[in-house]
């Protein structure tokens, strides 16, 4: 079996189509990295902003001092209070600036928590908590928890870290369209640090588009053997190899090559980050929604691993459908077309059957990897049985069923080959 797999891997890796696709994929990663690198907000960018803000504050303070001086000893309580407030701002921003210059993230987090925590605590027991309009209490609470996580673990945060750069699934309504635009724009944070860039790549790749890309990559893995004709399958069939192993080895090969492709993608992404920026933090917090507006944070390493695992199961599921149609139709384009049609129809249909009791066990629900792992899907569908575990189980069980069916058809076809 191993020798057969080895031969299949050589066949795939030496095919011109595969090589072109791989080069295209590599170029895509490099281009995407360039985009992410350009869009990464760095401490220097914030320092410039802070300095400019402090300059404005200084000017304003100077104006207030001038007002106070022009009063020539007369008491002006209002101006004095204003000066005190601005001086507090000035002092905080000065500390913040110094911390940014020294990249002292713990201090920065302390300052943010110090400023943010009292407001959140005040709202905690408020019976009229904001639950729909940004920023909801949930967003405030999770942001504070994120700051604490970053501070406690002495992690370098992905900038920006202000409130307007954070939104959650519960922030459905915005007070004004400009605010909405700013929040939506800033809450998509880019970081060219290795593991953070890997997260961006995974978020982009681990979707229906990514699955389709992989399906194209291996579309002809079965059909190119010329099943039913005097194709290369005859070479395999006239060797001391059990016929069943031919199909199994092909499936294993597709799985192995997919795994290797994803692994190389991951290594390349991290290396690009390390070379041009830094490694990043494996324990960076990723928000996981809980039932009844509870939440936890998962470290980025675990999130990436789970993403990898779930996408792998998606591929397993897609390949099993592709193999079934390849064995039945023996034609590459028809098999690929039927596979894509099945997946797209399945996803559309699953959205309509979301209220049925078996809906959480329909694999078509779980193609948005990130939303599944963070439970954003469960929040959207208001059903926490749409979980990562159920997604994995659904993909696994259905794939095995389809594979078994494919295997039986292949064996029968081989036996009664015309």
């Amino acid at each position, binding site marked *: 079996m191993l020798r057969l797999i080895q*031969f299949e891997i050589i066949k795939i890796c030496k095919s011109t189509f595969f090589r072109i696709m791989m080069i295209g994929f590599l170029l895509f990663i490099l281009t995407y990295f360039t985009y992410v690198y350009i869009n990464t907000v760095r401490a220097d960018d914030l320092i410039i902003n802070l300095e400019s803000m402090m300059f404005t504050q200084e000017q304003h303070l100077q104006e207030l001092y001038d007002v106070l001086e022009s009063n020539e000893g007369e008491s002006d309580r209002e101006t004095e209070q204003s000066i005190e407030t601005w001086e507090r701002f000035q002092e905080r921003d000065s500390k913040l600036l110094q911390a940014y210059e020294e990249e002292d993230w713990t201090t920065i987090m302390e300052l943010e928590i110090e400023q943010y925590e009292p407001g959140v605590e005040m709202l905690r027991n408020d019976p009229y908590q904001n639950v729909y309009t940004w920023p909801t209490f949930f967003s405030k609470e999770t942001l504070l928890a994120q700051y604490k996580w970053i501070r406690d673990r002495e992690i370098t945060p992905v900038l920006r870290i202000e409130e307007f750069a954070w939104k959650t699934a519960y922030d459905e309504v915005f007070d004004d369209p400009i605010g909405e635009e700013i929040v939506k724009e800033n809450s998509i944070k880019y970081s060219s640090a290795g593991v953070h860039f890997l997260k961006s790549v995974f978020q982009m790749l681990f979707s229906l588009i990514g699955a389709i890309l992989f399906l194209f990559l291996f579309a002809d893995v079965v059909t190119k053997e010329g099943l039913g004709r*005097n194709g290369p399958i005859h070479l395999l*069939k*006239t*060797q001391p190899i059990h016929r069943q192993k031919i199909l199994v080895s092909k499936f294993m090969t597709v799985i192995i090559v997919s795994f290797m492709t994803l692994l190389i993608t991951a290594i390349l992404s991290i290396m690009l980050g390390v070379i041009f920026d830094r490694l990043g933090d494996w324990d960076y917090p990723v928000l996981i929604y809980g039932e009844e507006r509870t939440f936890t944070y998962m470290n980025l390493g675990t999130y990436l691993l789970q993403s990898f695992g779930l996408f792998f199961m998606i591929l397993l599921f897609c390949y099993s459908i592709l193999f079934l149609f390849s064995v039945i139709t023996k034609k590459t384009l028809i098999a690929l077309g039927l596979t894509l049609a099945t997946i797209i129809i399945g996803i559309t249909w699953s959205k309509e059957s979301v209220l049925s009791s078996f809906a959480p066990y329909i694999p078509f629900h779980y193609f948005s990897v990130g939303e599944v792992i963070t439970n954003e899907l469960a929040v959207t569908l208001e059903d926490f049985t749409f979980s990562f575990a159920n997604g994995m189980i659904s993909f696994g069980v259905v794939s095995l069923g389809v594979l078994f069916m494919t295997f039986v058809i292949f064996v029968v076809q081989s036996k009664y080959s015309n």
Partner: protein
Amino acid sequence: MIVEVKGLKKRYKKQEVLKGIDIQVETPQIIALVGPNGSGKTTLLNCMTNLLFFQEGEVSLLGKKHTDTSLFYDLSYLQDNRLLYGSLTGYDHLKFICNVQKIPISKIKEVTKRVGMESYVKKRVRNYSLGMKQHLLLAMVIMNEPRLLLMDEPLNGLDPTSAINMRKILLELYEEGTTIIISSHNLDEIDRLTNTIYFMKDGALLKESLQDFATKRYYIQVSDRDKAIGILKEQNILFTENDEGQIGFDETEVDLQTFINLMNENDIMIKAVEDQKIGAEKRYRELFEEELSS
């Protein structure tokens, strides 16, 4: 028994394409399968190697059922070059054979040298000419030094040098004890390889072709033709008469010395002896007279 095919029948839908084939090969030999296109030669070879399903009959090769995949350690089947992978090199193909057949990789060098494809073994197959592909196919089937070698049109696309080389290799394999069943349209090459030719027509082996195949026919002029004919009839020896009054018989009916002795015993004088080579083409012409005339 090297090859035992009993009552093999194959149907496509309602059309019977193999009509009860029986073949028995007990000792190593080279057997040629000859017949017009569509006579069932490739189908027969494909059924024998389990590439095609057949409805009736039994096939046993080298003492094993034809479905036993372990058979392919000792059996090789040279097929259509469409089974080659264009993106792979010849070396990749041979290495694969080595791996699955548990043959040392060092054998590749020996075999490529023998076949004469050392210079291009590491090139991609998609850049091969038809002849180069045939070389590779030959190299692939002799890697495991098979005891039984089935070949479907191996001479297609070969230039004269390559054809001579292939014939040399096949004869060497035969001398080493390999039984070769070869399907070919090249009757001249067949003549050079073997005298055992199975002619196929409409999915059946022609009965005549299963008898020993004479390579020579003698034409004798005798002093008393009528008496000689009477003796031959008495001895149940098949013979022909030509316009020149000669008596003709195949070497398989009676050898020349026995015929002479028989005539001498009956006081018949031999006046002249002529011999004529009977090639595969002549045999084919006799058996497929109808097709040729139409």
